[in-house]
């Protein structure tokens, strides 16, 4: 593969059709310097070997007839004047098939391109599965590639940081337990200016509903908390929020296929629900 110059807006020479404006992201640019072909090969093969035993992974590979009927399902494809490189099946081709074909022996530059495709050009929205005559789960396949990229550390910086935060604190924006409870109490006071005797019950055992906001709500969008408090109080719901970590319903781990963090977040919520003997959980995300 020939050297690539950033100026051309082409990140790899593997496909001449693939033209993108360069975007700087430390998560990609710095990690890629530390990668070697051997490292990539190891990770790719480890993940693919697990994949070989998964029907959800193998069936699409062996079924897809390359008919590109899924292409018009994707908003990326339509938004870019039907650029074939944005079609769902093209994304699978440029990432997964290529990795399989070369048995993971690819350059770090190539891997960076792959990461960009799976993270920044697909939302795993599953619309393409609805339009494929076979109902192939493309989102799942691209998710597998995200998993490879995640293990290699090739993840956009912002989302990686939020995932680290989740794995350390079980919320997405490095809030401490103190911050969280403070915010709740502060919001309670705020809303009282409008609605009498509003309560945001914290850690109430046996409540009907546990509400799990998104991590951004207490940090930058507190009005969501205020509104929820209003609604809950007016409706007279027996509700609560959890005081302990595990109140955030964001799950960035899911997006980058960091299964470990993902499961811990889910567990955190369920643990809290169990601890407080909650009947139902409302997750904003």
């Amino acid at each position, binding site marked *: 593969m020939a050297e690539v110059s950033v100026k051309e807006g082409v990140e790899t020479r593997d496909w001449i059709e693939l033209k993108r404006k360069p975007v700087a992201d430390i998560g990609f640019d710095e990690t890629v310097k530390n990668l070697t072909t051997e490292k990539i090969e190891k990770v790719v093969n480890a993940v693919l070997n697990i994949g070989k035993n998964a*029907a959800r992974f193998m*069936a699409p590979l*062996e079924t897809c007839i*390359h008919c590109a009927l899924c292409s018009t399902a994707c908003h990326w494809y339509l938004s870019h004047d039907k650029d074939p490189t944005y079609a769902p099946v093209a994304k699978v081709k440029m990432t997964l098939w290529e990795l399989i074909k070369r048995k993971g022996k690819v350059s770090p530059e190539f891997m960076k391109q792959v990461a960009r495709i799976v993270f920044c050009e697909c939302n795993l929205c599953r619309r393409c599965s609805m339009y494929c*005559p076979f109902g192939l789960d493309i989102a799942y396949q691209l998710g597998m590639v995200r998993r490879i990229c995640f293990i290699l550390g090739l993840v956009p910086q912002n989302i990686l940081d939020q995932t680290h935060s989740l794995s350390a604190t079980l919320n997405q924006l490095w809030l401490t337990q103190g911050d969280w409870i403070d915010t709740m109490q502060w919001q309670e006071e705020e809303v009282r200016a409008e609605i009498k005797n509003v309560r945001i019950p914290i850690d109430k055992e046996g409540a009907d509903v546990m509400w799990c906001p998104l991590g951004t709500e207490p940090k930058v969008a507190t009005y969501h908390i205020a509104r929820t408090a209003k609604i809950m109080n007016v409706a007279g719901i027996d509700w609560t929020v959890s005081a302990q970590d595990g109140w955030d319903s964001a799950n960035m781990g899911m997006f980058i296929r960091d299964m470990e963090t993902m499961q811990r977040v889910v567990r955190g919520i369920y643990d809290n629900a169990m601890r407080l003997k909650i009947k139902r959980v409302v997750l904003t995300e």
Partner: protein
Amino acid sequence: MYDFIKDPSIYNFVRGPLVWIAFLVFIGGSIYKIREMVLLAKKEKVVYPYMDLKLSLRSLLHWLIPFNSRNWRLRPVVTTVTFLFHIGLVILPVFLLAHNVLIYESWGISWWTLSEGLSDIMAMIVIGCCIFFALRRIFAPEVRFVTFADDYLILAIAFLPFITGFLAYHQWLLPHKIMVILHMIFGSLMLITIPFTRLGHMLYFFLTRAYMGSDQGYRHSKDW
């Protein structure tokens, strides 16, 4: 080469053991492949619990009837061609008069057959559809981008039995006998390759649709 093909032993081989082998490989291979996939699926935690017969059939039905899913409606030309192609592909070999005669000679059973004229038209349709698919692969940018050499290969595998059969029937191009031999070879080739190439979509279609249908159905959504 010519003499070789004219040799009656070739005809006998193709007419006898080769067809047998092809059918055995086709049936055995298909069962093996489906079994493998179902077993794999069983191992996965999130596939089996979601499977639901009713939801699967619902999804299958919507996609097996032309224009009954949104994507079929969005692409009328491709849909028409696809359905004509596959109907011809599946119905024609089974109900062709000549095939029935052969089967009758071998086993003494026969069933309802298509008239010769209709068969001829269907063969032409299938051939035409193959050409359409090939042109689509070459000229539609989104299809060309995801086309590998083996896409042409499987298209050719589907195409050859029909073109040779068609030519043999009309006795064009090559002597009848040779064409028939070629036709049988390609037909067997198609049967043998179905389970082991992406022509296997014929088998997996029902599995993948069933999975997606059940999964979406479970989430109170739909996938057509």
